[in-house]
């Protein structure tokens, strides 16, 4: 009873306040991410050195290691959180998450193929493009298999099929790899990490991600309308064909680019929208911006945590989010099954 009262009260949090607080936290963690690591950087000094054009250890660490890592954490997290919220709104299903339903898996496959065929060596953009192509195929297939009626079971089954497909084809690629080191590298990359990425990677991934965000920025009202089903949404003046295509494209752009540079970081798009949904009155359209910010927050925090945790070899980010996210997913499935009766 108390919990219900609390959640009802939480729905009256003004949306601007919520997003403002989340944005502030993201900014703080961006700074924290730039500072955190084996050596704690005196940030201001390092920034001064960069501004002065000096090449000191501090400025090099900041510019070539920490800055890209922090920026990618924010970009990748926001993309995953946003994509999760958008997919859940489109499919009207709280379990739709890029990692869980195979979108990240197929995006990874796309990137692996780009890597494998040597395309990415000749043309750097082939990597994110491969990821985006894989993600697009996945979301489109998912919608075709489970999008119309929004049933829980059909979505999970479709996701399982896509995940298996992605797994099988990726395994095939690794299996046929002529160079064991290359496949070793791919396996590690698949685990998902933001470590040792360059600013070039940021420049590679940021444009498609931003384009995806931009496409989703106007999708809010349509997602709200879709919570009443497709016919009602259309009767409220939304051209569903265009809405669908826009959201599928946007998700593919954001997730594909994120996976191409950071590997598979699962469950962000599941946990974040789920936790924030009550705070926006369960409206799928209102959930988009907070989910993007929350996703950035979660990934930045997790990425700082693995640097601070003294595990032998650094824990991979994707491993940590999976360790936290999988039990959450399990709990959610049990709860939703209870609701479905």
């Amino acid at each position, binding site marked *: 009873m108390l919990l219900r009262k609390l959640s009802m009260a939480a729905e009256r949090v003004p949306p601007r306040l919520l997003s403002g607080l989340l944005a502030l936290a993201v900014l703080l963690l961006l700074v924290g991410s730039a500072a955190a690591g084996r050596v704690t950087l005196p940030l201001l000094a390092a920034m001064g050195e960069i501004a002065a054009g000096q090449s000191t250890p501090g400025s090099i660490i900041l510019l070539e290691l920490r800055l890209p890592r922090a920026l990618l954490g924010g970009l990748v997290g926001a993309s995953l959180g946003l994509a999760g919220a958008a997919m859940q709104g489109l499919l*009207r299903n709280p379990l739709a998450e890029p990692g869980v339903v195979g979108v990240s898996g197929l995006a990874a496959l796309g990137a692996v193929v780009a890597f494998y065929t040597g395309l990415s060596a000749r043309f750097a953009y082939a990597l994110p493009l491969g990821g985006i192509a894989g993600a697009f195929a996945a979301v489109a297939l998912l919608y075709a298999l489970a999008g119309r009626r929004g049933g829980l079971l059909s979505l999970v089954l479709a996701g399982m099929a896509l995940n298996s497909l992605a797994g099988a084809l990726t395994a095939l690629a690794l299996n046929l790899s002529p160079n064991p080191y290359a496949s070793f590298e791919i396996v590690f990359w698949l685990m998902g990490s933001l470590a040792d990425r360059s600013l070039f990677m940021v420049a590679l991934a940021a444009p498609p991600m931003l384009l995806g965000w931009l496409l989703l920025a106007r999708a809010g009202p349509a997602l709200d309308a879709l919570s009443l089903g497709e016919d009602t949404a259309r009767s*409220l003046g939304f051209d569903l064909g265009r809405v669908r295509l826009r959201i599928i494209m946007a998700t593919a752009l954001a997730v594909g680019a994120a996976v191409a540079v950071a590997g598979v970081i699962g469950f962000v798009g599941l946990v974040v929208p789920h936790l924030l949904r009550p705070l926006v009155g369960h409206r*799928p359209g209102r959930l988009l911006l907070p989910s993007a910010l929350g996703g950035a927050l979660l990934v930045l925090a997790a990425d700082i945590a693995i640097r601070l945790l003294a595990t032998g070899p650094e824990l991979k980010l994707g491993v940590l989010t999976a360790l936290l996210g999988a039990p959450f997913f399990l709990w959610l499935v049990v709860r939703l099954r209870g609701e479905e009766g």
Partner: protein
Amino acid sequence: MRLAGQKLTVRIERRALLERVDIEAHGGELLGLIGPNGAGKSTLLRVLAGLQAVDSGEVACDGQPLGRLRPRERARRIAYLPQDGEVHWPLQVETMVALGRLPHRRVWGADEERDRTAVERALAAAGVTALRHRRVSTLSGGERMRALLARALAVEAPVLLADEPVAALDPYHQLAVMELLHAAAGRGAAVVVVLHDLGLAARFCDRLVLLHEGRLLAAGPPGAVLAEDKLRHAYRVTSLRWRHDGRECIVPWQRCDGDAAAGS
């Protein structure tokens, strides 16, 4: 306001769901759409709402073909309440009803006074103001239907189309919903409602349209449309009928085809 469909034909895999159906709905009138299962009532309603493409024929809203209206403009003129009434997230009644204002709002627009008052009017008209903070998922069948109806009323469109809004309700709520639709017509809207209950159709509707196997069998005042021979032909039932307060009263009584004869 006048919503008119002419020679509406819908075919799916060469089977005709609707065959050259003419229909007209006028402002201030409650029009009942009746007919046995599979007669094409819901299809016709979706065509009128602009949700279902036709193979031939045309629907016009005050003389303007629906197909030429932008979706948003169409949405402001025609509110549609589907049969299943799905609500996918645990939305509060108030939030769900406010979705009816989407055709009037800009993408980034905040709540405008006009939208807020429209939502209040709709909540009050449907008698769900007291339920405004309840989650739709926790409502009873009758409450839920009234809340969904409030969502459709919140559009404040001159045309309201409702697909079997009373099908799953107890008699009290059936009457409540029919009164609501009647009141909406009284306020000037053209209301078209798909009904299975012939008694309610006779009691509340100003005019009826009877469909049978995708064709128009009869249209006109309830007394004429619900004539015994037409019901036998369309529904294969006999009926009891009498008049009360100048209104036709009707209760389906007995099946009257080969099956019924064999059974008795």
